[in-house]
C-alpha cells in the first residue's frame, strides 16, 4: 500500500492555544495534558460528504427566511474556500450562524436584554461552487455583552463551520468586520498569537460585491489546511 499523505501542521502561532486564560471558559475546558501526535491514517484523510438537498434554495439568504425582511444593515458576504496552496475547495458545505442586528441570538440561553427579530433566525447554509466560491446574504450582526470580564463585549461576528475534503480539514471559525473597535479587547480573537493569522479572520469591505441601492459587500476568503506533498513532511 502506498504511503498516505497527511495534512500540514499549522504554522506556529497561527492557531489559538487550547488554554487561553483571558478567555475564562477555556480554563476548565481546555485539556491540561499535551495532545498526542499520531501517524497519518485513512481515518483523518477521509471525511463525510453531504447531499445537496440539505441546503434549501433560500438557505444562503438569511433575509428571506420569514414573512418580512429582518431589521438591520443588509450585507452580502462572499469569498472563496481554498487550501493553503490556493487550490479551490469545491462543493464543500458551509454552515453559518449569527446574532441579529440588535446583538441577540435566537437561543434560549441568550439572556442579553435586546429584542429578538421575528424575521430573523440567524442560520445559513450553502455549498461552494466549482471555483470554491460562496455567497451569503444577511444583515450585519450587532455586538453584544458577555460575562467573561467586566464590561466585556463581543465584536460583531458571524460563525462559520466548514468541512473541506477530510476529517483533518474540519474548521469552525468566526468572521469579524474591518475596523471594529471591539476587536482590540476581545480575548477570543486574541487567543490566536500571530497577528497576521488574526487578520485572516477579518473580512474586507468589498466594492465589487456591494450592490447599488441594496447591500454592502464583505469579502471573506477561508483557507483550510493544505496537503503534504511527501509522506514525511510535517
Amino acid at each position, binding site marked *: 500500500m502506498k504511503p498516505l499523505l497527511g495534512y500540514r501542521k499549522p504554522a506556529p502561532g*497561527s492557531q489559538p492555544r487550547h488554554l487561553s486564560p483571558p*478567555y475564562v471558559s477555556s*480554563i476548565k*475546558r481546555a485539556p491540561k495534558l499535551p495532545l*498526542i501526535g499520531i501517524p497519518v491514517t485513512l*481515518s483523518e484523510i477521509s471525511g463525510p460528504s453531504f447531499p445537496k438537498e440539505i441546503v434549501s434554495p433560500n438557505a444562503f439568504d438569511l433575509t428571506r427566511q420569514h414573512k418580512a425582511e429582518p431589521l438591520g444593515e443588509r450585507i452580502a458576504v462572499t469569498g472563496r474556500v481554498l487550501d493553503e496552496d490556493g487550490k479551490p475547495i469545491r462543493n464543500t458545505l458551509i454552515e453559518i450562524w449569527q446574532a441579529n442586528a440588535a446583538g441577540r441570538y435566537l437561543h434560549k440561553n441568550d439572556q442579553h436584554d435586546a429584542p429578538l427579530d421575528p424575521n430573523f*433566525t440567524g442560520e445559513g*447554509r450553502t455549498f461552494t461552487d466549482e471555483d470554491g466560491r460562496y455567497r451569503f446574504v444577511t444583515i450585519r450582526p450587532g455586538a453584544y455583552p458577555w460575562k467573561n470580564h467586566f464590561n466585556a463585549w463581543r465584536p460583531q461576528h458571524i460563525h462559520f463551520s466548514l468541512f473541506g475534503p477530510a476529517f483533518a480539514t474540519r474548521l469552525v471559525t468566526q468572521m469579524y468586520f474591518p475596523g471594529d473597535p471591539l476587536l482590540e479587547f476581545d480575548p477570543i480573537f486574541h487567543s490566536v498569537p500571530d497577528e497576521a493569522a488574526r487578520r*485572516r479572520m477579518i473580512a474586507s469591505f468589498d466594492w465589487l460585491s456591494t450592490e447599488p441601492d441594496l447591500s454592502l459587500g464583505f469579502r471573506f476568503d477561508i*483557507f483550510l489546511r493544505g496537503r503534504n506533498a511527501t509522506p514525511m513532511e510535517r
Partner: protein
Amino acid sequence: MPGHSTPSQTVGPFFSIGMDKLNRANIAEGSSGERMHIHGRILDGDGQPVPDAVLEIWQADAEGRYHHPEHSGTTDATPFFGFGRVPTGESGCFSFSTIKPGPVPGPDGKPNAPHLEISIFMRGLLQRLITRLYFPDEPLNAADAVLLAVPESRRATLIARKAQPQENSLEWDVCLQGKDETVFFDC
C-alpha cells in the same frame, strides 16, 4: 501560503442555531453490521457536566471502508454515510447508535483496530478536540498504531466500556481534565 490556514475559533454557546439541522444520532442507518448504542458524558475540570457541547463522529462501514474517494476501492462518497453529530443535554450526556466499523488498513499495512473518529466542540474550546473511541474486547486494539502512540496508562480513556443492561450498549465518558483526562490527538 503553507501553514497559513484560517484560525479556528470557538463554536460559542449558541451553535445549535446553525448546526442543529445536521444532527444525526443514528449513524449508518440502514447499513448492515453489528448495531451499537453508545452513550456517555462530557465532564469539565471540576467534574461538572458540560451541557453545551457537540460531538461529531466519522467512521468506516462494517467492512472497514470509508465512503470517501481517498479510500481505494470506494468509488463514490455516499452522502452522510459514516457521519454523526450529537449535542450534549442538560446533564452533559450524549448518545448515538451506529454499527461497529470493520478494521481499516493502517499506516503500516496492518489493520487499524475498529474505531470512531470524534471531534468535540464547545464554548471554551478555541479549537475542536480530536479523539477516538475504540471497542472493548477487541484483539486488534493491541496492535493499533494510534493506540500504541498513547502511553499505556492513558489508553483506557479511549476504550468504551460495556454498559448494562442492554446488549451492545457501550459507555464512554470524556474528561476534559483531571486524573482521567481523555487522550486528545494532534493529527
